[in-house]
C-alpha cells in the first residue's frame, strides 16, 4: 500500500468530519479514494461537499445560487419524466400562490422596451454588471417578430401573439402568469420564472406584455406592415 493510501485510510479512522472538511477545501480532491469512503458513510454530505468544492463565487454569481428550492430539486430528479402527482401539485400550488399581478391593474408598458428585453441575453451572469437592467432573452427560445430571423426553437412560437388571442382579461392574466412563473401551467417547464425569480422587474414584464399584445408591435405585424408602421 502506497504512502498516500496509508494516510487516507488513517485519516478515515480518525474524525470523518475533519476528512470531509479538508477534502471540501481543496479544489480537486473529491473523485478519489477518500470521497468513495466518505460517500459510503454519508452519501448526501459527500455529494454536497463535492458540489460546493466544484464552484466558487464569481462576480454577482454567489454560492447561494446552488441551493435548490423545491421545484428545482424535484424537476432535476425527474428530468424527462413526469413528477409524482403530490410533488407536481405542490410545485403548481407554490407557483400559483407566488404570482403578483400589477398593482395598478395595467398590464401594458412600452413595446420598444419589450423588444430590447426580448432581444437581450445579458443579465445575472457572473460577468454581467448587476447595476445594468437584465434582458429576458426571449428570442433564445421563441419565434416572435417576423423581422427577427435569429430565433430559437426551445419554446413554442409566439408569432402574432396578441393578434391571434385578443386582449381579454383572461388572456392577459394567463400571459402575465406565464411570464411570472410558467410552472403554474406546465410543471417543470424549462422557462425561467421571470417574475417569481426577480429576473425582470414589474415594469419590464409590462413592456414584454406590450411587445406581445400591442397591434403596433412587430410581433403582431408582417414584414410589409412593419415597414409601413416604421415609415409613419
Amino acid at each position, binding site marked *: 500500500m*502506497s504512502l*498516500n*493510501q496509508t494516510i*487516507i485510510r488513517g485519516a478515515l479512522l480518525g474524525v470523518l468530519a475533519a476528512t470531509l472538511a479538508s477534502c471540501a477545501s481543496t*479544489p*480537486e*480532491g*473529491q*473523485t*478519489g*479514494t*477518500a*470521497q*468513495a469512503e466518505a*460517500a459510503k458513510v454519508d452519501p448526501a454530505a459527500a*455529494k454536497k461537499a*463535492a*458540489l460546493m*468544492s*466544484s*464552484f*466558487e*463565487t*464569481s462576480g454577482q*454569481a*454567489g*454560492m447561494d*445560487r*446552488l*441551493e*435548490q428550492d423545491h*421545484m*428545482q430539486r424535484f*424537476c*432535476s*430528479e425527474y*428530468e*424527462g419524466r413526469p413528477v409524482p402527482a403530490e410533488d407536481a401539485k405542490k410545485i403548481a400550488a407554490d407557483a400559483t400562490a407566488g404570482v403578483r399581478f400589477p398593482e395598478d391593474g395595467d398590464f401594458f408598458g412600452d413595446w420598444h422596451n419589450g423588444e430590447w428585453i426580448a432581444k437581450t441575453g445579458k443579465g*445575472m*451572469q*457572473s*460577468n454581467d454588471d448587476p447595476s445594468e437592467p437584465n434582458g429576458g432573452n426571449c*428570442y*433564445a*427560445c421563441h*419565434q416572435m417578430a417576423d423581422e427577427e*430571423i*435569429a*430565433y*430559437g*426553437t*426551445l419554446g413554442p412560437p409566439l408569432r402574432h401573439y396578441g393578434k391571434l388571442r385578443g386582449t381579454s382579461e383572461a388572456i392577459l392574466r394567463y400571459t402575465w402568469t406565464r411570464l411570472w412563473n410558467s410552472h403554474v401551467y406546465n410543471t417543470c417547464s*424549462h422557462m*425561467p*420564472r421571470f417574475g417569481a*425569480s*426577480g*429576473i425582470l422587474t414589474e415594469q419590464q414584464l409590462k413592456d414584454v406584455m406590450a411587445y406581445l399584445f400591442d397591434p403596433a408591435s412587430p410581433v403582431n405585424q408582417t414584414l410589409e406592415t412593419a415597414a409601413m408602421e416604421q415609415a409613419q
Partner: protein
Amino acid sequence: MTMKTLSGTLLATALAMAASSATGAEDDIFAQYRAMFGDDNPAELTEFQGEDLWNEVRGPKQVSLEQCDLGLGAGVVEGAYAQLPRWFEDAGKVMDLETRLLYCMETVQGMDVTELRQHPFSEQGQPQTDLEALSAYIAAQSKGMPIAVPQDHPAERAAFEMGREQFNFRAGPHDFSCATCHGQSGKRIRLQSLLQLNEPEGAKASFSAWPAYRIAQGAVRTYEWRMADCARQQRLPGLVHGSPAAIGLITYLGVLANGAEMDAPGLKR
C-alpha cells in the same frame, strides 16, 4: 513596379455571418465553411506550440513532459486523449487531460502551476496558455481513434454518476441545468443548433470535437473551458477547473461517446 494579380482562385476567411433562413440552415452554411478548410484548422498552429512544450526541458527538475504518464504509460501520447478521463493510481483520483497535464507539470517537472490552475485559459487577443497548447497537441494525437473512456474503477463509475446528476441539476435564478438546453434533440438556441448530450449520438458529436478552434474566440478552447462557459451562461457561480463536477460531466459525456472516432481539435463558430 507593377503589382501583379494572380490568375487563379483566391479564398480568404472572414467571419461567417450566417444570417440564413430560420430553418437551421446555418448548419449547412457552416458545413460548407468547414469544407473550405478541408483538413486545415487554425488549431494546428496551437498544436505545434503544444508539441514544443511537451518536448521542452522545463521546470526545477529540468525534464520534459515525456516522463508524463497520460494513462497509457510514460510518454505515450498516441491514443491517450481518447481514453480520458480515467483513474490515476499515483494521484488517487479520476483526472481529465487538463488536470493530468497540470499534475505532470507539477510532479514531473516540479513547476508551480498555481497561476495556471487559476487562469487556465487565455483572454481574447492573448497568446494561448501552456495548458491550451498542450491540450491541442495531445488531443490531436488521438485523431481517428475510438473513444474509450474507462469505467473499470469505482471512482470512474462514481465520476460518471456525478456527471449524470450534475447534468440534470437545475439551479440558479434561471433554473437552468445542462438538460434545459441539451436534454432534447432537434432544438436550437437563437440560430445555434443544440446537441442532445444525454444520449450517445449527441455525446459522440460533442466529445469527439473538443478541444476546438473557436472562430469567435480566435483561439483553441478546451472541454473544461466549454463546461465553465456553460455554467456562466446558466447563471451559476464559477465552475472550478478540474473540480469533481467538471471531471464528472466530462466523464459522463465521454462514456456516452464511447465508440465514436476522436476528431479533435475541431473547428467551431
